[in-house]
């Protein structure tokens, strides 16, 4: 398909059909998209992740209605612990209120189109689209250009929803290839707490491409945990952006688990705009087949006295390929920053590869920053140790890999989700 013409047609249809409060925002974003286009390999940020090929395929209209899903369809994608969670469903990029269940009275979920009109106007106008300042590419703009059916999630001052929020990004590709663009803005007010677990699931065998953006605004003394679980089928592709903005002294904790998919690109950003913010960013990717996983992270220290810790670990099997790109910015006023970053990879086959790149830009002079990355094989000495105790080589390898993964698994504080991910990994390692 001719990408630009295709998107232009779709965009014009969307704009003529939906004359809503987001019209102008969409128009601006589409203009930006037209200028930037789809990122090509010559774009340094996309050097190892080629997505232009995904745009050569035919996708069903971007603005179609939500397809009908059965209870069985939904059950098949649910995460453990869902009976005690607020469950939010996006289907083909559109938020579906009729499929969703909100159990906590303190959790506000509104269509973005509504949120920007009334009580939350100021917050939405101020924060929606902040990620574009960090992700200056056509992909981010494309999501914003088609923003409709997105949601605003809000936790009011001092509130803690008693249940976590599970977000399901479902694609129904049973009848055609689907391109979907879920969008959400999360606002956690002063002294409020929120736990989010998000996953992606494609129903159907046609190809899917999800270009998802979530922006999270964290106010003073708020506490946010975010978990991303990516285990979709091998014919699915994703660009998944999680952009966290800490605008008051606050605590955030994000864990990204990537186990499958054709091309998966994650943009995980944390912008620390207030003093004494704390951010934890963890990731675990375990890939096989021809899967490609790309974790791009940004930790931006704008204010002084912030602490960030980042640890991403990868296990790459068969012909899988991986990218880790970790940026840390320390702005000139951000004295006394403590920022740590580490990326560790184990290659399990001769055909697997990883490109890892720390990128530190430090403009303050009184900071503690460290980074390190390793790419290696499984520890031979450890393997021999286990074998010498009678443990067959295959099981010994699995035990070592599980041990490698476990310190990231332990960072998942929602127990049923942690057990679920542990089971997925143990199953793949044939330990169960």
């Amino acid at each position, binding site marked *: 398909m001719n990408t630009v013409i295709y998107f232009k047609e779709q965009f014009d249809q969307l704009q003529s059909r939906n004359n809503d409060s987001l019209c102008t925002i969409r128009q601006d974003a589409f203009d930006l998209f037209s200028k930037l286009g789809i990122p090509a390999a010559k774009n340094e940020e996309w050097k190892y992740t080629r997505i232009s090929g995904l745009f050569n395929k035919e996708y069903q209209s971007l603005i179609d209605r939500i397809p009908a899903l059965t209870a069985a369809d939904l059950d098949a994608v649910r995460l453990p612990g869902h009976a005690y969670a607020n469950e939010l469903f996006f289907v083909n990029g559109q938020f579906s209120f009729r499929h969703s269940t909100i159990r906590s009275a303190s959790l506000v979920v509104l269509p973005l189109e509504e949120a920007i009109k009334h009580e939350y106007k100021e917050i939405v106008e101020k924060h929606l689209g902040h990620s574009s300042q960090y992700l200056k590419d056509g992909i981010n703009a494309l999501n914003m250009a088609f923003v409709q059916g997105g949601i605003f999630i809000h936790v009011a001052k001092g509130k803690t929803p008693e249940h976590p929020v599970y977000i399901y990004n479902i694609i129904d590709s049973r009848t055609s290839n689907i391109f979907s663009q879920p969008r959400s803005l999360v606002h956690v007010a002063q002294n409020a707490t929120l736990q989010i677990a998000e996953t992606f699931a494609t129903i159907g065998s046609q190809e899917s491409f999800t270009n998802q953006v979530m922006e999270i605004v964290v106010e003073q003394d708020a506490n946010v945990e975010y978990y991303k679980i990516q285990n979709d089928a091998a014919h699915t592709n994703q660009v998944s952006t999680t952009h966290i903005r800490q605008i008051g002294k606050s605590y955030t904790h994000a864990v990204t688990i990537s186990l499958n998919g054709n091309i998966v690109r994650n943009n995980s950003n944390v912008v620390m705009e207030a003093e004494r913010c704390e951010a934890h960013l963890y990731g675990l990717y375990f890939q096989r087949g021809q899967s490609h996983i790309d974790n791009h992270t940004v930790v931006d220290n704008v204010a002084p006295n912030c602490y960030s810790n980042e640890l991403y670990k990868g296990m790459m099997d068969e012909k899988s390929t991986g990218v880790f790109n970790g940026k840390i910015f320390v702005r000139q006023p951000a004295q006394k920053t403590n920022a740590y970053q580490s990326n560790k990879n184990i290659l399990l086959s001769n055909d697997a590869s990883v490109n890892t790149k720390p990128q530190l830009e430090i403009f303050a002079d009184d900071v503690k920053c460290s980074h390190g990355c390793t790419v290696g094989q499984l520890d031979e000495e450890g393997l*021999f*140790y286990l*074998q*010498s105790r*009678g443990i*067959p080589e295959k099981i010994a390898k699995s*035990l*070592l890999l599980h041990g*490698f993964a476990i310190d990231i698994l332990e960072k998942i504080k929602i127990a049923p989700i942690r057990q679920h991910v542990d089971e997925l990994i143990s199953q793949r390692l044939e330990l169960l």
Partner: protein
Amino acid sequence: MLKIQNLHAGIEGKEILKGINLDIKPGEVHAIMGPNGSGKSTLASVLAGRKEYEVSKGTVEFLGKDLLDLSPEDRAGEGVFLAFQYPVEIPGLSTTNFIKTAVNEIRKYRGQGTLDAVGFLKMMKEKMALMGIDQSLLSRPLNEGFSGGEKKRNEIFQMAMLEPKLAILDETDSGLDIDAIRIVANGVVKLRNKDNAILVVTHYQRLLDYIVPDFVHVLYNGRIVKSGPKELALELEERGYDFIKSENQPVNA
């Protein structure tokens, strides 16, 4: 039980063992002593099946089987146990889980049924009492952050759990203070019986004060150059290895 004949082995093309002969019977304790670089640890590694080492000549027979033909895990299944000089730290693997897997894999190899959680716990409690090992050590990741003494005690605890027929102790005394050596050695002594054998590889005599050998062999330059009763160890301690070296000067062609 173990019969080593004319064993030649090396690493990266360099021959280190140059014709070892050794015969160990059930119930016996043998000590291999020798100066640094004589090939002591190489011998222990070759017997346990460390794959970097290549055997170029000779045979090793263990209970009638060709030991060199077996994988490290199968050697363990047959009853060979190596207490490591440097036990490996394995982050993320609990010591208990590791030992349970090892016990059950060896039981499988031997055609015995695997132990369930209750059976395993019972066995572990017995051996913990026997070895004076604390539960807290076993719930930690395998050897991670263990002190030198804790690592070696953990090795001997594993030996107690796996009940090997032949235990090879590779420099088990290295890096330990006198008290730790006594504790570790007493653990080994408790495991000694008429059916199993122990091969102690050591640089110093002091471990042999506790684990009293039936035979002492001096390894030098890849060969056993002297064998004798336990008094030989005391003689080495007194005279040092120099007299061995001077008696065994390589002949220049």
